[in-house]
């Protein structure tokens, strides 16, 4: 897999249950900085830093001309005292994920599990309908969601309750659930946060020369799409398109909009 330019190099591979997966991690200083908790804060503590001209005293004319007469705070929180994990596709090969587990929540879970904190980022592949999947059961015995076998889950050991990571997508065109779990000594995973199913996509380079799909008339389509879909207007075959000439090699044009003189 070609490495994406500009990203940090892969530093460490931690896995359980499946073949190793490369991943990229933010630099340690950044993670450490983000990891600091403000113990006193339930809500976000934002400084009221703006001030009006009348409050600035007697600046000279020159200073006034080139300096702002008021400014806004740029202090933003490092964390939100919430538990969440989010994931976004970067491209067909990589996902960006970030998470935060609130310290109160972590403390409660550790207390319940009676072990040290043992955090993992878990990636669960959602089974397709054809797959022979097993079903997770929640505490009350209800079906939660179909996943492939747990031994096929991918896990990354994470040392921070706040962090982010770029992850290579195991298989394109599949659906995944991202989770932060605490692995207890008994081997059970305690779910701390999860992100809804994220569908990845393929970068299918195969271009069909001619596809037999019907054409649909705009007037019907825009007026009543649902009805229109039942009344597709078939056109005669137009013969084979030479896509090489029509489109050249699309890959060389990806991102060509980044003009530089």
């Amino acid at each position, binding site marked *: 897999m070609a490495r*994406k330019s*500009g*990203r*940090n190099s892969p530093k460490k591979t931690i896995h359980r249950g499946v073949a190793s997966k490369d991943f990229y991690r933010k630099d340690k200083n950044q993670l450490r900085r983000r990891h600091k908790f403000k113990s006193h804060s339930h809500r*976000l503590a*934002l400084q*009221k830093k*703006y001030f*009006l001209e009348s409050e600035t005293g007697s600046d000279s004319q020159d200073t006034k*001309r*080139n*300096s*702002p*007469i008021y*400014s*806004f*705070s740029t*202090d*933003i929180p490092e964390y939100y005292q919430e538990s969440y994990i*989010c994931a*976004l*596709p*970067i*491209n067909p090969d990589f996902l960006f994920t*970030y998470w*935060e587990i609130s310290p109160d929540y972590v403390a409660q879970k550790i207390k319940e599990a009676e072990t040290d904190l043992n955090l993992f980022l878990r990636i669960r592949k959602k089974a397709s309908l054809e797959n022979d999947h097993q079903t997770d059961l929640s505490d009350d015995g209800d079906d939660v969601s179909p996943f492939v076998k747990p031994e096929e889950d991918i896990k990354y050991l994470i040392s921070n309750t706040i962090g*982010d990571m770029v992850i290579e997508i195991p298989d394109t065109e599949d659906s995944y659930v991202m989770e932060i779990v605490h692995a207890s000594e008994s081997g059970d995973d305690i779910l701390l946060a999860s992100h809804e199913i994220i569908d990845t*996509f393929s*970068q*299918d380079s195969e*271009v069909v020369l001619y*596809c037999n*799909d*019907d054409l*649909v*008339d*705009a007037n019907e*389509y*825009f007026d009543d*799409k649902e009805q229109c*879909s039942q009344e597709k*207007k078939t*056109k*005669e075959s*137009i*013969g084979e*398109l*030479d896509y090489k000439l*029509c*489109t*050249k090699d*699309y890959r060389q*044009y*990806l*991102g*060509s*909009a980044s*003009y*530089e*003189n």
Partner: protein
Amino acid sequence: MNRYESNPKGYLCLVLHAHLPFVRHPECDYMMEENWLYEALTETYLPLLSLFDNLIDDGVPFRLTMSLTPPLCSMLSDSLLQERYLRHINKLIELAEKEIERTANQPEFHSTAQFYLGRFLMCRNLFENVYGGDVLRGFKKFQDSGHLEIITCGATHGFLPNMQLNPNAVRAQIITAVNSYRKFLDRDPAGIWLPECGFYPGLEMILSEAKIRYFFAETHGILFADPKPQFGVFAPVYCKGAPVAAFGRDAESSRQVWSSQEGYPGDPAYRDFYRDIGFDLDMDYIAPYIDPIGIRINTGIKYYRITNKSADKLPYNRDDAMRVAAMHAGNFMFNREKQAEYLYSIMDRPPIIVAPYDAELFGHWWYEGPEWLNFLIRKIEFEQNNIQMITPSDYLSLYPSNQVAEPSFSSWGEGGYSDVWLHKNNDWIYRHLHRMEERMVELARSKPLAEGIIKRALNQMARELLLAESSDWAFIMKNGTMVQYAVRRTKEHIANFLRLYEDICSDRVDENFVSLLESHNNIFPEIDYNVYR
């Protein structure tokens, strides 16, 4: 008369995407970043309006598609920025007059100095006397006369694929943009330029809600559509999920203009962007025309042509550059003719060749761009019969039968997906943006009937969120120039938003703070926070 009655072999859909981030600093007498707008006015927007006027005066028909983003419309209509632009252009005229004196004994530069003075005087006349400071009126005039099809964009050019976790946030970007379009252009937009051409499957549902009938997608967004479109990017497809048409960018015509290696703008005869007298001349001389604190900046007066890649540059010759621009326009037209001829022979209709560009490429980065466009439009009208200019709406009217397919996730950024806006230099912003979006939806739902200062605070929260979402900040952070400003703007909007949120939650809204924000970040004065419900 039907403007398309001559049955050409293909159609050329030129799309100019005009956008600048919302930069307005009433707290400072001078802010360098405001120059982005002034430079674009002098080098792109006003020359384009002048070009359109000249074409109409000469009886040359044309059909162009332009996206004018809501931040740009807001800035063009802002009285403070209008006043400041007038001050800016007056200073440029003063400088150009001094340059004519200074170059009196330098014939290789003197005619160029005279050209600049003429150009700046034209800009001031157009800006002040013809449009009364409101350049948007000019674009509206050409839309009303049927020469331009103006489309909208995301409210603040937020990169929508990175907002897809929260459909309400995406919806707010689209609905706010449509409302802004109505306010400025007195009609509904037919189409949209998706910010950064960023599309993800499912977005069409929200576009459809906003009554948008078409958008543009990057080449591979159409080529990887499901099912594969039989005409590639040379005919629109109708999205599966909702009644919206998608037009794909033609890679070949894009490359001829965009490419820094093979593209026209890199021709040795064209003006060199980087050799500016703001950096070349003595500080004593140039000081009144650069940043007041002594930072050298581009003034817009440049005397050299690209020449080659070395630092030794030859003087710019306007006439030579015009000859090359005419030649490039002819080359572009010839290639589109050949493209159309071939495609016409294998399609059941004339193809549409969609060629979108950043409007600011024309004039700002590529100084001769507006003239190239001028030559191209005239050549298409008078020198051939194979292709015609068209807009997406007109093409859909002429050829309403199209394939149904779902375009794939794509953007026109480097790499073709989200790599530019999810980069190690900017990915920190999303933790905050997503939390803000959640909080905005939460308050919009819990306080749908807010009045008075709470309502004002909620509306301002919506503005701060939209401004923080602008893709420009992430783009700048990734590219590494002006990073400090982009980071500051992002953090300011986040901090402003979170403070308002805290104040509303604790029932302690500071009216002075809200008023200050309303006067400072005054984009979308009519916004209703309920757009997030």
